């Protein structure tokens, strides 16, 4: 530990979702901003305990889905009625009922791209290195333990006071993690 020069923050370990939930409420009420909970699975309702706002993914999907559908329709309209109009089976050039399936599929495809790549973008994935990976105990984050990490860059962060707060929330252990 002597070699440490810069700390990423404090990492507290919890055994149950219940402990984590109550601890998150305490950290939230203490007014921290740059902190996070780390869990092996989504703990439902934790966003309330953490005071997080709802995800903006639905808006991305909405915009992407409708633009995908519009693009799909335009592609069919432009190729069939503008760029190279061909009479096929005596149908009008803009035979829009026949364009419904491809329009629909394009909408779904772009909406899904919006959901997945929007999620990657907002979550800044891939991030192959993260300071928390320096902690040995953090390996259990993807197995059976629950963590709260409060970052040193938070204006309210105080090495001693923050540690006291985390210890008082029933943490199994509190550890300082290197940058």
């Amino acid at each position, binding site marked *: 530990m002597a070699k440490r020069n810069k700390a990423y923050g404090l990492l507290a370990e919890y055994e149950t979702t219940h402990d984590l939930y109550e601890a998150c409420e305490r950290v939230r009420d203490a007014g921290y901003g740059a902190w996070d909970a780390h869990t092996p699975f*989504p703990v439902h309702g934790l966003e309330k305990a953490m005071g997080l706002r709802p995800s903006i993914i639905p808006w991305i999907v909405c915009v992407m889905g409708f633009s995908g559908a519009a693009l799909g329709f335009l592609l069919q309209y432009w190729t069939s009625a503008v760029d190279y109009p061909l009479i096929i089976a005596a149908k009008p050039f803009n035979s829009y009922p026949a364009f419904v399936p491809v329009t629909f599929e*394009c909408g779904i495809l772009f909406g899904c791209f919006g959901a997945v790549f929007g999620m990657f973008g907002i*979550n800044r994935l891939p991030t192959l290195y993260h300071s*928390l990976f320096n902690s040995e105990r953090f390996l259990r984050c993807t197995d059976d333990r629950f963590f709260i990490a409060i970052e040193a860059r938070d204006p309210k962060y105080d090495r001693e006071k923050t540690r006291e707060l985390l210890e008082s929330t029933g943490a199994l252990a509190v550890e300082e993690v290197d940058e």
Partner: protein
Amino acid sequence: MSHYIPPFHEHDLDPVEGRTNLIQTAPTYSELTETVAHPIEHPNNKIWWIFFMGALSLLGLFGISVAYLLWEGIGIWGNNVPVGWAWPIVNFVFWVGIGHAGTLISAVLFLFRQKWRTSINRAAEAMTIFAVICALSFPAIHVGRIWLMYWPLPLPNQMDLWPNFRSPLLWDVFAVSTYFTVSLLFWYVGLIPDIATMRDRSKTAIRKIAYGVLALGWRGSHRHWVNYEAAYLLLAAMATPLVLSVHSIVSFDFAVSQLPGWHTTIFPPYSVAGAIFSGFAMVLTLMIPLRVWFKMEHIITIKHLENMAKIILLTGSLVGYAYAMEFFIAWYSGNPYESFAFVNRAFGDYWWAYWIMLTCNVVTPQFIWSKRIRRSATALFILSIFVNIGMWFERFVIVATSLHHDFLPSSWGYFTPTMWDVATLLGSFGLFFTLFLLFVRFLPLIALSEIKSILPQANPHYKAPKTGGDSVSKSATGVVESREDVPVRKAPRDTDSVSAKVVVSDASQAIDVRPPPDKGGGQDPPEGKTDASADKATEDEAEAEKADAKKAKAEKGDAFTFKPPATAKSGDKPSDDGEEG
């Protein structure tokens, strides 16, 4: 605790929700991780290699068939006028149908909050992707000149021509490729947290790098989970209409044509029901041996198989209804060609195929009405094989019987497959099983993060007793969620085996400890007995106990004796006594 799996109990209830627990052995999170990671980390190489070599040989057959086809042309198959669409299209529709269960389980059951999907969705999604790969390969080779495969894509080209968007075949290109892309994304998004689990357990550098890159640096952040869950829900919401549209569009290939036997409006719903039917049958075919092989009977329980069997019964009956309705409409339409097509289907040259289809698809699932059969893994496995066969024949009947008697008797014919038809079909199974075996060898078969989240203790309202471990007592003073009016018993609830039985009610919190088997009268005491022995163990809480008796939750068969916290075995793992200063 090795592999004892207690039988199903109606009274194994979730203490918070009061519903029957899906995972009956009440495992801890890490036990689940161990179970799922075991086949990847300690593979039974011998069995795996035997199966893999078998699958690989069939894949080789597929390679040879396709190579010969490309060299020689589709004349090597039995397709010929009037049966121009034969086995390749039959196989295409068959594989696409199988590919429907995965997304149905992932998306539709997710939207309906069917928690039992979590045990089977990962494998079913993988099955979907591999089945769609097999499906896509058939139209690709059926075009004969595979180097012109890009023609259906709207690419600018030297001829200045665009594809004809009024053709159902082109809708098919968009539908199936969208379906493949979306299924792949859905599967991968679901896999990310579990790949992160595998990364954190990796011992070798190759695994660390491979899983590390695939996990994208996932660290279980709740700020990530919020977006992740929103994305997952929306993927499910979009995949649901998608899965229904895909097989509808595949059936448009037939229904939009003018051919009696194909030109029916019932085709889209009937094909979707058939696709779900065959897909669930394939899930059963795969999961029943896998759960035994990987010792996952407590995760993929009889209850899961029973639920799938019920869906097979429902969709099988829908398919049966559609068969009957086709005949009714053929008669009711008054169209002689339409009537002929269906009489010819049942009693013409291909009568044998029709009756195989009818027996396998309509008669076989009716056995599922019997509770004994639908709760027997062996019986369901046999049933599922019949359904798979029946659904292949359904597509064969639709394609071949409608085509082989053309409008003029002079153009009647009879289709017979060649050895290359058979080789290609068998080979496609090789492609499917090779991919599936690679999947079970290297990726988690069970959606770990999802199955953990349906355990009772995953709910933040589930108040577990504090452990007797030192690391807890030194930091947890003052904030334990105990209430003063009810004494909280400290039970050694360590991370490797949860042995304490926990009963929670609004009024009080009490801990119920399951007695050792000899004391409680056998490993699985009936409800009354559990209560009686629980009272013995916690006399001072008898009142609270009785109020909660209906929520009593039987535990694992491990013998466990209740001890005061002082002598309780510590639940801490070595990593827990980390630095505090």
